[in-house]
């Protein structure tokens, strides 16, 4: 698990942690069952409050990304396939939206864009 805390970021520290952990789970850098450092250990490593790391883990648990077992620690949760798929869909949508914006800037119409997409899709097998 890799986490970098920025002091100048407007986002609260617990949010910086949850965002980075989620990204690593979605990208599969962290896999099902992988152990996370303890709340106190993470606080020590990042030199931040125990309360902050506790809150980050609580949020991750609430959203189903991690499980905490009393006395054993926290682990990356068994991924709900639907949930993960939804998240990846969102990623695809975001990238397509970016392409649409660029196309509009260049004055490329919908029909032409569709044609490009069909070609690209076939090209990649």
């Amino acid at each position: 698990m890799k986490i970098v805390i920025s002091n100048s970021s407007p986002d609260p520290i617990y949010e910086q942690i949850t965002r980075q952990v989620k990204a690593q789970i979605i990208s599969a850098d962290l896999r099902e069952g992988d152990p996370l450092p303890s709340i106190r250990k993470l606080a020590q490593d990042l030199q931040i409050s125990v309360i902050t790391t506790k809150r980050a883990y609580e949020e991750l648990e609430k959203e189903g990304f991690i499980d905490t077992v009393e006395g054993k620690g926290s682990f990356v949760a068994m991924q709900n396939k639907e949930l993960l798929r939804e998240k990846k869909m969102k990623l695809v949508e975001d990238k397509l939206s970016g392409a649409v914006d660029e196309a509009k800037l260049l004055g490329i119409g919908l029909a032409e864009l569709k044609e490009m997409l069909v070609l690209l899709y076939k090209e990649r097998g």
Partner: protein
Amino acid sequence: MDNAIEILGLRKAYKRFALDDVTFNVPQGYVMGLIGPNGAGKTTVIKLIMNLIRRNAGEVRVFGLDNLRHEREVKARIGFVYDVPRFPEDLRLGQIASALAPFYPKWDGGRFLALLDEFELSSRTVIKKLSHGMKMKFALALALAHDADLILMDEPTAGLDPVFRFELLEKLRAFIQDERKTVLFSSHITSDLERVADFITFIHKGRIVFSAGKDAILESWGVVRASDGSVRPDDIPGLRGYKQSEFSLEALTSDIAAARKRLGGSTACDKASLEDIMFFVSRGETHA
């Protein structure tokens, strides 16, 4: 949550200063920062916990025990680090440790030597040869060697360079890895506590302004900045102090969400640092 320290209605009157009805708890397993300007009463609170001065009223319980009736037992579990550690100048570090060891049932001589090593100190060095920072480290080594459950520090970072300060804060975080251990740490250098503390108690003119989780404080307090005349101090929700100059108004609010909502885009609402909070609350009373 269990409390390592419970302070209830504590009073201490001096000629020009009084600690007035001070009540707060230090939860076990966390770092509590005690902040306030010079002369606010931080050292008085710590001296009363250690029973170095006589209180006029109130109660102090450490690990659930009254700090006067169970003084010996309570003190054996506290590692006390003064702002200026006072040890006999001509004694060697090892001699001081041997003299103190009998007072601590859990004293661990081997651990003490290992800590000296880690802090790059020698048991044969004489106290007067140590710099301020080295004395601080020695005092911390003593506290850790008797396996204290509570470390009490009065302005430990004052007069230390940033390297020493950082090292000290790292040691405190390591100490707290054991969730039965607790730290109470007074400082007017708020940036040290901004990072490391779990809870903050703010004392001003002998009274507690607040005692709460640090994250909660930093998320709800804010500084509002407006150009002159566009906003009056009374318009700001949760106003806790302000500074008015010819061109602008700067004000501290304890409810930044409400301030943003009411004042909208006409002002800048930023997060407040502990330093902002200390500054505006301290001067707020004379200007409000």
